[in-house]
């Protein structure tokens, strides 16, 4: 069995990456946070045009490679949610493939539907007023208490597992970007006459972040191939922790500049911390995995 991506999968990943690089995902995330969703929606439409949104339900590996790049460039928008609905509800696939934005929540694991204000549909229906959100590009909407007439009953488990898997892939990319920024900074920033990256303690933090992300990646792609809930749980728990570890290392190694909102690490840190908990945090998924293995 070959574990590496095929030439076509790499080509597609590169196409997604070029689009996001040219469109500047971080700038779109900043604009989105400030209330201007236009650049972010343009990226959304561009990715739909090259076929990212048509992969749901049929090409999970390709979709995970795309989600990793979406994470890497911090592109805003409810990608895991829309694509999870497409995977779970085949009748929605053509519209989502064409660029429709939908969102979802599966209480009690993931009780808030992100970006419900810009979504054409929300599964199930959500309140119209957002609650406080750590990631300003990911506004959160509580599911309506009194069940509203819903678009259609949605298979909650499949939505949960798909959204958790895609969020795990997104976290891999986000964590990698935070680490890349930090490695570049550690080579540049001089203290006591040497680049801080030359100090062993700094190297260790970077190496730990790197191995965490690299060890999480096979779990994500194994879950994409098997679609087993227990594999998804292993992937989401590992990716959440690896990305968060990378983000914390990034924050500390950057020193004071890492704490400023103007520096792009802030965009990544907030996104990683909020996705760490979204669609089930590590505790939920570890618990589910252990139950499945018969250990609990």
């Amino acid at each position: 069995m070959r574990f590496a991506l095929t030439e076509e999968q790499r080509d597609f990943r590169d196409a997604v990456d070029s689009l996001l690089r040219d469109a500047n995902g971080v700038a779109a995330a900043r604009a989105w946070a400030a209330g201007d969703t236009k650049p972010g929606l343009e990226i959304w439409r561009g990715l739909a045009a090259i076929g990212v949104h048509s992969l749901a339900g049929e090409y999970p590996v390709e979709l995970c490679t795309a989600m990793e790049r979406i994470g890497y460039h911090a592109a805003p928008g409810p990608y895991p949610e829309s694509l999870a609905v497409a995977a779970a509800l085949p009748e929605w696939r053509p519209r989502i493939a064409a660029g429709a934005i939908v969102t979802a929540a599966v209480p009690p694991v993931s009780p808030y539907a992100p970006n419900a204000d810009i979504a054409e549909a929300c599964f199930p229906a959500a309140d119209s007023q957002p609650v406080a959100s750590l990631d300003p590009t990911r506004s959160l909407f509580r599911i309506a208490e009194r069940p509203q007439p819903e678009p259609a009953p949605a298979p909650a488990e499949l939505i949960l597992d798909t959204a958790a898997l895609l969020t795990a892939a997104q976290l891999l990319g986000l964590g990698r970007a935070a680490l890349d920024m930090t490695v570049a900074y550690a080579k540049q920033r001089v203290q006591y006459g040497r680049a801080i990256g030359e100090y062993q303690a700094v190297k260790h933090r970077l190496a730990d972040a790197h191995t965490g992300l690299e060890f999480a990646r096979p779990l994500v792609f194994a879950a994409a191939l098997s679609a087993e809930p227990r594999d998804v749980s292993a992937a989401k728990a590992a990716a959440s922790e690896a990305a968060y570890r990378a983000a914390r290392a990034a924050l500390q190694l950057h020193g004071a500049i890492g704490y400023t909102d103007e520096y792009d690490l802030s965009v990544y840190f907030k996104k990683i911390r909020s996705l760490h908990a979204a669609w089930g945090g590590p505790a939920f998924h570890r618990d589910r995995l252990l139950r499945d293995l018969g250990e609990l």
Partner: protein
Amino acid sequence: MKIVVCVKQVPDTEAEKRLLPDTLTVDRESSNPVLNEMDEFAIEEALKLTEAHGGEVVVLTMGPDGADAAVRKALSMGAHSGILLSDPALAGSDAVATSYAIAQALGTTEYDLVILGSEASDARTSLVPAMLAERLGLPQLTFASKVEIDGTSITVNRLTDYGHDVVQAQLPAVVSVVEKINEPRYPSFKGIMAAKKKPVAALDVAAAGIDAALVGQAAAATTVVDAAQRPPRSAGVKVTDEGDGGVKLAEFLSAQKFI
């Protein structure tokens, strides 16, 4: 309408490029090979023209064995078929030999229009399009920032230092495009999957009818005698304003052709 787009595989544009110390040719191992960025604009323009006027796009490249990746990228953007001209005898060809080899390879197919990028990011000579037109005995419309086709006549805006000239010719013709002309599309998932099944014809010097004595490094009209690392950036020019700072600034910018 049949359009041939000539593309080149080059070392990654953003990577630092090196010359091999013994042959003084580009060290292709030191960076990833990519499709020359400017050629993407040529492919995009060809695709737009065939979308508007019907027809097909053939992508042609000359390069080492791995150059089929450049062809594949063009096919995944939407080109219909490819021609890969590859032969050890072609290694080290200069612009004169390259234009000859491409002209011969073009002889194996029919076409109404040949489109090229206006330069490759590695050699940056911008010579091949003009030489190719001369070899083929066709009108050359280089540095095009806009292309229009009406029947058998082609009109381009040719970019100049002072704006643009409007140049007109009859098809078949050779066009080179600048990056202002369009916004190249990204390969789509469908396009990438479809590219696998598109035909790519392989040509060697014999099949293309190329005289091997006229190509390759030995036949090159120019020789690289020596190469050195570019010196680190110097401090630049400091203008001290003694009442004439504005004039000196304007003179500098004018000398650099900024104004």
